[in-house]
């Protein structure tokens, strides 16, 4: 799949796309399915399925706890890929793998890429794998038309942003604020400045994640970004409001795209 082209095409009738997030195995595989079903009904554009890892250094406390719980639930890699198989076959969202490098390394670059492609993913996001280390994995992914999504962050120097921009595939994932997922709620003006800097260094669609909580956040991004990425807010909606609360936030977010 040409991910960038697909994103641009969907942007014809909406001002921003919505990307959501699931930690596979938390709260359970059955509930993951309900979440994915709800996403499809809300016409979510993209979803990242997170592969649980015992040392999730780029995740905030909520996701770290969820990863741990998923592992305690004995979620295996096979469970992960089976869920991706079923979901990508059944639902129209673009599916991306999100996870930490060690799990990929142990599976093997080639087998991992092959399995991910077979599951119907469009690419992957590996937050602890810097550009310089992507080499062999990147070749294995690209051979199967899988895209390696790279992150741009506000602490990067312009020179580094240029390097990332040149290597980026699919879309650029801009980190809206310093830090790990799920910690802050306010949106600062520097974010918009940062997003326009990101645009200077890449022609690919621009996604924004880390800290997006509400439809208001998504609306504020109209004209500044192409994809709003919501993760921990949805998890929180599930934990506090169950499936109803989850659907409610999904529909609000989905509506805020127009």
């Amino acid at each position, binding site marked *: 799949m040409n991910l960038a082209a697909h994103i641009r095409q969907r942007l014809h009738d909406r001002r921003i796309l919505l990307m959501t997030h699931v930690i596979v195995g938390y709260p359970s595989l059955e509930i993951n399915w309900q979440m994915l079903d709800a996403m499809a009904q809300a016409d979510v554009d993209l979803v990242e399925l997170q592969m649980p*890892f*015992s*040392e*999730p*250094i*780029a*995740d*905030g*406390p909520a996701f*770290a*706890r969820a990863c*741990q719980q998923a*592992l305690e639930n004995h979620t*295996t*890699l096979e469970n992960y890929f089976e869920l991706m198989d079923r979901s990508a076959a059944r639902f129209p969202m673009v599916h991306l793998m999100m996870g*930490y*490098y*060690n*799990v990929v*390394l*142990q*599976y093997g670059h080639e087998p991992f890429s092959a399995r991910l492609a077979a599951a119907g993913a469009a690419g992957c996001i590996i*937050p*602890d*794998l*810097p550009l310089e*280390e992507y080499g062999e994995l990147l070749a294995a992914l690209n051979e199967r038309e899988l895209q390696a999504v*790279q*992150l*741009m*962050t*506000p*602490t*990067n*120097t312009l020179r*580094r942003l240029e390097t*990332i921009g040149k290597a980026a595939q699919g879309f650029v994932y801009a*980190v809206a604020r*310093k*830090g*790990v997922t799920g*910690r802050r709620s306010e949106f600062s003006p520097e974010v918009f400045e940062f997003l326009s800097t990101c645009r200077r260094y890449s022609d690919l669609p621009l996604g924004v994640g880390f800290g997006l909580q509400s439809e208001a956040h998504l609306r504020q991004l109209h004209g500044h970004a192409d994809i709003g990425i919501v993760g921990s807010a949805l998890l929180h909606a599930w934990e506090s409001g169950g499936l109803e609360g989850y659907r409610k936030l999904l529909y609000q977010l989905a509506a805020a795209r127009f």
Partner: protein
Amino acid sequence: MLRELFEFTRPGYYGPFGGAFVPEILHTTLQELQQAFTCAQQDPAFWEEYLQIMRSYSCRPTPITFLENLSREVGGARIYLKREDLNHTGAHKANNVMGQGLLVRRMGKRRVIAETGAGQHGVATATMAARLGLACRIYMGAVDVDRQRPNVFWMQQLGAEVIPVEAGQATLKDALNECLRDWAESMADTHYVIGTVCGPHPFPQIVAYFQQIIGQESREQMLAQTGQLPRSVYACVGGGSNATGMFMGFLDDPQVELVGVEAGGLGLASGEHAARIAGGGGTVGVAQGYKTFFLQDEAGQMRHTHSVSAGLDYIGVSPILAHLHQIGRVRFQAATDAEVVEALRRLMRREGIIGALESVHALVGALRDAGSMSPEDTILVNLSGRGDKDIFTIAEALGDAEWVEFLRRKVADA
């Protein structure tokens, strides 16, 4: 060999180990740290300032003690101890934190964070922060907070904020993850004082640089006191900072055997240990920002580890030591909890020295091998820390009924 170790062909790599596997948000911070460190390293006044502060604040050079009674009892090589337990705060950790403290001052940062397992690195960081006027937060696994309450008390008294980490196994590795999370938000004014030769580049290099003072002193002292180089040098290995610092002094003496001793826990066969290399079960992986041997399952999830000593209870091992193991320069073995408690008892009774449980792992290795060596040979063991902090654990291991009774009375009074 020592010089080539840090002349990287790939930045931050020791053989196939090391690197910097961190979220992009930390990329610039690590580069800035690298620059500040390189700059300090090239400034001769910096090492002089470091030596000065270690002499006046931390009892350096620490002495070498001949274990006359134990050596006679074993009847082989003469065993010497490098007394890192006599450092300020009672362990070699002071070497690293004071050095990093001087770096923090150069970088102009106002706050430090650190992970701690046994609490020694936390206490050392808290003293450094107090001395240099820095705000200080220590992350410590909730399990370790329970195991090492006295150190928690001292960190707090020294003005540090101690945050128990409940995530994961609630031990050292989880405290390290939490530090990386804090740092990803706070790097503008905060330095992460990592406690061991692990984590993303340039941390292993920085910590090794400061800890090499152990090996430098030891080599000179052994030559001066015994007129020869030791046949073998032993150090315990958790993350590996005391071992790396000690071994660096002897890397270019190929006749000196270097031995790292890992935590054998309840025995290698039990699976309840933290022997990543000696146990043969460690496999190459990437976690906590670097590539090395980890105790992990086939899917890459980290396994539960166990040791009587909190400081050795860790899933990974220094990329520098992993490399030195792979090229055959450092030999690894393991000591069980039971062997360690027994060796500690002998060290106390025969020599009047209370070593830390961590450090006594190295002594177990030395006692095991010394008997088959000649009295002409000498062995050097790094006693990386003192054992006062382990009073609760040791009393329990020794089954001291009077101590338990004392605790009951204290609790009843309180």
